[in-house]
């Protein structure tokens, strides 16, 4: 009997050993090559190496096999459930046929991008958060943006404020570094940018009481993790105007200024561009800053990549009183007009949905263009000075004001895509307003939370459709409406533009759609299992172009779901990716 058991174990062991090398021998990881600085500067069109595809944050792919004519032949090739539940904002990265997929709670999976086979999984061991840090647990379930690829490594930012560097071939930890003290409230929710052999990252949690006075963008050495520089978005001793803009509020009484989206990088200028979020507390009545503009909140900042010194800043929304922060993607666009190359930075940086163009060498304001209904900015001067609607600044506790857009946007983390083919910026937007009331609606007795109350999100008067896919034609002197696709369900994913003349985006109604870049006509759509989330991404393996679409639980879907009650929202179990390619046999 014992012999039989031993024999069976032996057979099973041999089978396992035989299987492992066989699987390993066929692994796409064997052919994985380092993501060099040269590749990062000029990503091959078959890969998707960055959050938004390249240093420019354009969200554009040069692949064109899937195009206006062929898109109708897209077919599902594989799907994969994500490793965890939670709000889904992921961006799959692809290199050499390997897909790296980050999900909530800092889990990374490597998948064969052609077959959907799992190659390895990394699960970050988070500290057992004490009950006093529920906010971090909450944040960990809404991981934003992305990871980064560099050399033979995968770089991850974690909810417990660590940089973790993984071996791309195995998922093993190469090194990790505790960057800031999570016990003060710091937490990473956006992915890093690899530039100039540095890991550039931006911290979150800057509205937590313990992080008063300091919110950072930082650079660490890519090889060693050593900190090279840090820039504080709410306390800049090198710029007296910054301090003055907070009135009599010293740094130790300031909060906010979180950069909520991964920055862009211009290697030629040596500058990295980041957006900064709202001030805290939200209402100036409570934060004590009077009529001060509270720099660098709601600004674009350009930092020298080598030193972290500020080259310039531009504030998109001074005196924010409504949590209408402006931290979203900064997109770099070069356009040649009459023989002169214009280096633009374009963005719909804030929740109020106003599009801006800046000269990215100098920060000079070029133009702005309104998109969705907003009432918080009354005027923007030709020199770029932004005037707020002072009627909407609460002057008493308990005084509600009706602000458009709502705290949920307008624009939110879902990134727009720029197509150099059409010189057009495609942006996912939401029409919504809400009441904003500075109040201390105390939850726990004596504890400092809930200083502003937001009413239900409602449609602006006269508007019946919450969803808007906006196409803005861009040039150095103006931006204008090229087309608008309005619909009841709100957009819930980032956009992807391709050389095939298509722009992809998804919505709360669970549809991934392919629009004609020129006309906005929907050329293809597919309904999936949950609201489309994160960023659709495209890549190529063995000469075939693939489209990967993340889906899952979405706060953007639920924030104004009352505007499309005919579209039921599923539960939160649906976090998945769906991968499509063309049916070569079609026609």
């Amino acid at each position, binding site marked *: 009997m014992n012999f039989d058991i031993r024999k069976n174990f032996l057979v099973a062991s041999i089978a396992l050993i035989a299987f492992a090398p066989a699987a390993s021998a066929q692994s796409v990881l064997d052919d994985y090559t380092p993501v060099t600085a040269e590749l990062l500067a000029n990503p091959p069109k078959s890969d998707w190496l960055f959050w938004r595809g390249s240093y420019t944050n354009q969200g554009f792919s040069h692949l064109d096999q899937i195009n206006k004519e062929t898109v109708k032949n897209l077919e599902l090739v594989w799907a994969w459930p994500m490793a965890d539940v939670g709000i889904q904002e992921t961006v799959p990265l692809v290199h050499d046929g390997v897909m790296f997929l980050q999900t909530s709670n800092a889990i990374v999976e490597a998948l064969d991008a052609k077959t959907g086979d799992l190659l390895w999984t990394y699960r970050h061991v988070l500290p057992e958060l004490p*009950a006093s840090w529920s906010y971090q*647990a909450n944040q960990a379930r809404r991981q934003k943006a992305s990871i980064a690829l560099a050399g033979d490594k995968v770089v991850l930012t974690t909810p417990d404020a660590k940089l973790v560097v993984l071996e791309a071939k195995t998922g093993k930890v190469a090194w990790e570094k505790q960057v800031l003290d999570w016990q003060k409230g710091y937490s990473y929710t956006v992915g890093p940018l690899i530039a100039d052999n540095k890991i550039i990252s931006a911290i979150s949690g800057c509205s*937590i009481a313990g992080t008063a006075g300091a919110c950072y963008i930082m650079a660490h050495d890519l090889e060693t993790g050593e900190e090279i520089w840090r820039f504080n978005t709410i306390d800049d001793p090198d710029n007296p105007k910054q301090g003055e803009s907070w009135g009599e509020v010293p740094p130790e009484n300031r909060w906010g200024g979180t950069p909520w989206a991964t920055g862009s990088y211009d290697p030629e200028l040596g500058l990295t561009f980041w957006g900064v979020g709202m001030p805290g507390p939200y209402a100036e009545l409570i934060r004590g800053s009077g009529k001060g503009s509270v720099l660098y909140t709601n600004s674009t900042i350009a930092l020298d990549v080598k030193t972290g010194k500020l080259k310039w800043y531009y504030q998109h929304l001074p005196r924010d009183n409504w949590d209408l922060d402006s931290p979203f993607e900064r997109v770099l666009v070069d356009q040649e007009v009459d023989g002169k190359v214009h280096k633009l930075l374009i963005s719909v940086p804030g929740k109020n949905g106003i599009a801006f163009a800046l000269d990215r060498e100098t920060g000079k304001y070029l133009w702005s263009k309104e998109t969705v209904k907003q009432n918080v900015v009354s005027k923007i001067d030709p020199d770029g000075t932004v005037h707020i609607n002072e009627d909407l600044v609460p002057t008493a506790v308990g005084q509600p004001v009706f602000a458009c857009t709502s705290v949920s946007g307008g624009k939110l983390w879902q990134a727009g895509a720029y197509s150099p083919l059409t010189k057009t910026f495609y942006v996912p937007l939401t029409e919504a307003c809400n009441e904003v009331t500075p109040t201390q609606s105390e939850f726990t007795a004596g*504890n*400092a*939370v*809930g200083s*502003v109350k937001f009413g239900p*999100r409602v449609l602006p008067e006269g508007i019946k459709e919450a969803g808007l896919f906006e196409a803005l034609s861009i040039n150095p002197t103006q931006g204008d409406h090229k087309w608008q696709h309005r619909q009841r369900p709100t957009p819930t994913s980032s956009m992807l533009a391709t050389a095939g003349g298509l722009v992809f985006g998804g919505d709360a109604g669970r549809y991934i759609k392919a629009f004609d870049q020129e006309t906005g006509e929907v050329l293809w759509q597919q309904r999936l299992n949950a609201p489309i989330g994160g960023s659709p991404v495209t890549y190529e393996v063995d000469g075939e172009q693939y489209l990967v679409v993340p889906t899952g639980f979405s706060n953007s879907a639920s924030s104004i779901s009352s505007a499309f009650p*005919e579209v039921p929202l599923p539960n939160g179990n649906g976090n998945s990716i769906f991968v499509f390619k063309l049916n070569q046999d079609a026609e």
Partner: protein
Amino acid sequence: MVRWLAAAVLGLAVITSARAQSYGVPSELLKNTRRIEGDTLHVCSDATGKIRAFDHAVANAIAEMLFLRAEFHEGFGGYPTSGDGFLDELQIAMTNTCDIMMGMTVQENSPFPEWAALSRPYVSLPYVLAVKDEAYMSLADIPVTRKLGTALSSMGERVFITWNQQQPEGKRYTRLPYADMDLMTKRVTDGSIAGMIVWQPVLAALRKSNPEAAALRIIPMAPVPETMTRVGVLMKARDTFLRSQIDQAIDALVADGSIAAIMAQFSYEGVPGDARNAQ
């Protein structure tokens, strides 16, 4: 038509409960089970609550009165001033772990959603103005050229801001919000600010832990209206029997002097039960 009406009603229900403090809880995070221990009262509290030890003492007294065994859980806590995430975590804790959540504010325009219900207050505790300068005997003695500190986003801050805004512009104080009470104490001590408006239980705790706070005096805040935070127990609205039992226990503990005795242990000033005449 009926379907659209139903959909509209459903939509209204959804938006009515929507608040910035909640992104919505995925249903798989919520346990769909019933607890079956009939003699145990699962007691939670905000781990960062200012009167947590006091709350536990009150919870023990409530449990004893109901012939139950109080079992304490770590609860949750630690939120940004916006309250981001609070209601999500509260819903998870109350669904999965807790029968009652101690130390919650009972106030008009309660921010809690419809699934939650509050008991009557078991204690009402005031905000106070603490100063170091011996020349100051009341708020009126503090020149408006001096700054004051307030506990960030507190009820005391709200009342002070409202009063301050009602003064002519030249007679308003400059006020700075503080989240770190030791730092605010230090700023009173080093003269950066003339005084600080804090919850009295917080000052009582500071006086035990921070020598600088021991030197501070409480002076009258008039004409700023008195601010009391009324503290109660949060339960699930569907636990109607438990709610009535808790309310009756609180009434009894106030009436027999038990709450007052616990307040004395912690050096709390205020009113057992509901300070009906307070602001």
